[in-house]
């Protein structure tokens, strides 16, 4: 489960991130983060809100620079992978372009890369996320869940080397969310893309990930890394297994060290 034998797709060494508020005060969002994620691994990042989970993701997506330490994705700086159009992301905000129909939103990465749009691939992914028949719809005509699924299809359309997911199912209802989790596992198994998922949900993390990284409140530090022992493919049934509950309880406790002391 742990990656030393694998080649690292993502590597954070001694990473800190400070945000300057004004001339004299700054906030430490991340402190001394060391994390290596192997090629083809699925890692989930959980922690209380404001713990810097999303900051880690933004560092890996080349949207922020670390204040200290090094960040490497696929052996190089994150910006190099982004410039090579080999990075896939889905944010909490679907960030679909309102003036483009769904199919063209999903095809957007092809256009950005200056490549011919592979229509078959777009159709394939739309089928995968259950949006067949909505190709010509505009984002404003879709439900929140459908928009989120469109943004996930978009993140996969160029077969990225690394997939970064920031709470992509956060706004969905429980049923849709579970359905999306099952779909995401299937997509991941089919492709073996290295994936980092930021989530609030312990269940989601356990269901999907090879390892779960638990972070502390600000300044964000890594409290614990838990390997998830369940065999794949995982069926929704495992969420009812005793071992699942046991692990979920341990992770929930790890999330709130204060409540353990109480």
């Amino acid at each position, binding site marked *: 489960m742990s990656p030393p034998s694998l080649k690292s797709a993502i590597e954070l060494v001694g990473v800190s991130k400070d945000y300057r508020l004004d001339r004299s005060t700054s906030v430490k969002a991340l402190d001394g983060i060391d994390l290596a994620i192997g090629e083809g691994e699925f890692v989930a990042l959980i922690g209380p809100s404001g713990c810097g989970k999303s900051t880690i993701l933004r560092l890996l*997506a*080349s*949207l922020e620079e670390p204040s200290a330490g090094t960040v490497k994705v696929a052996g190089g700086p994150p910006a190099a992978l982004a410039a090579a159009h080999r*990075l896939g992301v889905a*944010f909490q905000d679907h*960030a679909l*372009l309102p*003036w483009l129909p769904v199919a063209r939103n999903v095809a957007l990465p092809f*256009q950005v890369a200056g490549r011919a749009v592979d229509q078959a691939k777009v159709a394939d992914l739309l089928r995968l996320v259950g949006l067949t028949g909505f190709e010509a719809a505009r984002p404003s005509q879709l439900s929140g869940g459908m928009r989120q699924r469109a943004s996930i299809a978009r993140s996969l359309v160029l077969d990225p080397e690394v997939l970064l997911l920031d709470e992509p199912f956060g706004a969905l209802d429980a049923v849709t969310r579970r359905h999306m989790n099952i779909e995401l596992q299937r997509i991941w198994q089919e492709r073996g893309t290295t994936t980092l998922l930021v989530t609030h949900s312990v269940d989601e993390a356990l269901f999907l990930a090879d390892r779960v990284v638990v972070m502390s409140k600000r300044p964000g530090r890594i409290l614990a890394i838990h390997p998830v022992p369940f065999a794949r493919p995982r069926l929704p049934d495992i969420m009812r297994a005793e071992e699942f509950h046991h692990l979920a309880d341990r992770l929930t406790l790890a999330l709130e060290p204060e409540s353990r002391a109480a």
Partner: protein
Amino acid sequence: MGRASQIVYGALGVVLFLAGWEVIGQYRLAGLTWPPLSTVIEFLGTSSRWPLFGRALASTMSSAATGFLIGVSLGLVLALGVHLLPRLRPGTDRLAAMVNAIPAIALGPILIVTFDRAGTPAALAAIHVFFLVYVAVSSGLTAAQRAQQDLLTVLGAKRTMRLKLLEAPAALPAFASSLKVALSASILGAILGEWFGAPRGLGVIILNAMENFQIPLLWSAVLLAAGISLALFGLATWLERAVHRRFR
């Protein structure tokens, strides 16, 4: 408020305004210089005067259209320019604001010397239009949401690709809104420009009628200018709505 009652209230307002105009004119409540609406319409409706109004209108509209096209092109080009070369922005912003802040009456002589009397209406219209379009488009180009900007960064978009796929479409609603205001501004600019000695135009009629106390002629020219302005404004509002529906 429903759409139907909106129209009813709007129509009621227009009727009240026109009726008020007529009453004030008939009873000379505002003196001799306020003719009743019916007198103005009768004056405008006399076919022997149509060639005069036709020539003036054609001249004003052609100045306004020329100024509009030049102003829009200039505004677009400069807004795109400062967007791609941000170092030029502070200077260009200030220059645009300064040109706009100078009263037309002060610009007039400079324009006459530079573009001669016949070219001044178009030049003044262009200045007004340029400013409106420049301000709207240069802020519209930064109107895309943060998450959409981030997405293009992560996808590895180059500068021109980002402009084409995200920033330009995101600026279209602001551009459409500025065109709406710029249409009336171009007519206003052209009429003002004609006061500096243009050979013909609605502005010339207005000025001459005022100086010679030809009250019905004065009001006819004003009514004509207002009517054209309003018609264009309505057309542009329709265009603006279509763009907003599509791009927001």
